[in-house]
C-alpha cells in the first residue's frame, strides 16, 4: 500500500517536472525542474531496492550534471529568447508516443513470455551496495575501467573545449567589440 502511494506520488511528480522541463521557455525553470525530476527518479530506485543506484543518481545527476549545466548556463545569455518555431505538434507527439510504446513492447515481450533467466542473481543476505560492488568489480570490471577512462577523456575534453579564450567573455563585451573581434577572426580565416 505504502509502495503504491509512493510510486504514484513520485510518478506524478516526475512526469510533472519533466513536462515543465520540455515545455517552459525559461532555461532556468527548465534546469530547476530537471534537477527536481532527477531527484524524484532516485526515489524510484530506492523503492526498487537499488539503493546504491539511487545514491549515484542523486550524486551524479543532481550534483555533478546539474552543477555543470548551471555553470554552463552562466556562459550563455539565458535570458535571450530562443525563437522556438513550432512544427506540427501532432507529428511530434504521435512519433514520440509510438516510439515509446514500441520500445516498451519490445522490452516487455520477453518479460511477458517469461523466458528471461537471471544472469547475475542477487545474493541473499547481502546489501545492495555490496552486491553491486561484487558484480561491478568482477564481471563488469573491464567496462567499468573503460567507463572511467571515458569519463577522464570527457573531463579533459570539456576543459579544453570550454577553456579556450576564457579571458574573453562575449556577455561582458560591447557589441562593437564583438563585431571587431569577429572581423579579425574572419580576416584570419580569409588569409
Amino acid at each position, binding site marked *: 500500500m505504502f509502495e*503504491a502511494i509512493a*510510486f504514484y506520488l513520485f*510518478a506524478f511528480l516526475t*512526469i510533472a517536472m*519533466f513536462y515543465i*522541463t*520540455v515545455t517552459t521557455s525559461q532555461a532556468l525553470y527548465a*534546469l530547476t525542474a*530537471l534537477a527536481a525530476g532527477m531527484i524524484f527518479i532516485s526515489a*524510484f*530506485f530506492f523503492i*526498487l531496492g*537499488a539503493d*546504491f*543506484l539511487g545514491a*549515484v*543518481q542523486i550524486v*551524479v*545527476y543532481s550534483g555533478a550534471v546539474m552543477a*555543470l*549545466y548551471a555553470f*554552463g*548556463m552562466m556562459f550563455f545569455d539565458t535570458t*535571450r529568447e*530562443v*525563437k*522556438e*518555431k513550432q*512544427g506540427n505538434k501532432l507529428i511530434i*507527439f504521435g*512519433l*514520440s*508516443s509510438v*516510439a*515509446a510504446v514500441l520500445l*516498451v513492447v519490445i*522490452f*516487455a515481450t520477453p*518479460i511477458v513470455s517469461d523466458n*528471461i533467466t*537471471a*544472469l*547475475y542473481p*542477487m545474493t541473499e543476505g547481502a546489501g545492495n551496495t555490496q*552486491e*553491486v560492488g561484487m*558484480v*561491478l568489480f568482477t564481471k563488469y570490471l573491464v567496462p567499468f575501467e573503460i*567507463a572511467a577512462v*571515458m*569519463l577522464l*577523456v*570527457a573531463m579533459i*575534453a570539456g576543459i*579544453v*573545449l570550454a577553456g*579556450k*579564450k576564457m579571458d*574573453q567573455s*562575449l556577455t561582458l563585451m560591447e557589441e562593437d567589440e564583438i563585431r571587431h573581434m569577429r572581423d579579425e577572426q574572419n580576416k584570419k580565416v580569409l588569409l
Partner: protein
Amino acid sequence: MEIGLNHYLVLSTILFAIGLVGVMRRKNLLMLFFATEILLNSVNISFAAISHYYGDLTGQMFAFFVIAIAASEVAVGLGLLIVWHKKHNNIDLEQMSTMRG
C-alpha cells in the same frame, strides 16, 4: 494494489515520450541536452525495475554505465556548446545548417 513491473514500464514509456517530445520540439540546444537526460533517465528506470523484478543485477549495471555516459556526454557537449556560443553568439538549432545537402 500491488505495483508491478508494468507500472514502471508504463512510467518509463511516458517519460521517454516526454523526452522525445523535448528532443523534437525544442530549438534551444541547451534544452535539447535536458531532453536527452530525460530519455536516459526514463530508460534507467526500466533497467532498475527489471533488475528488481527479476532479481538480476545486470539491469542496474547498465544503469550505472548509462549514468557514466550521460555524465561524459554533458561534459563534452557543454564544452562544444560553449565553443559554438563563443563563435556564433547563439545556441539556436535553426542556425546550425552547415550540413545542408
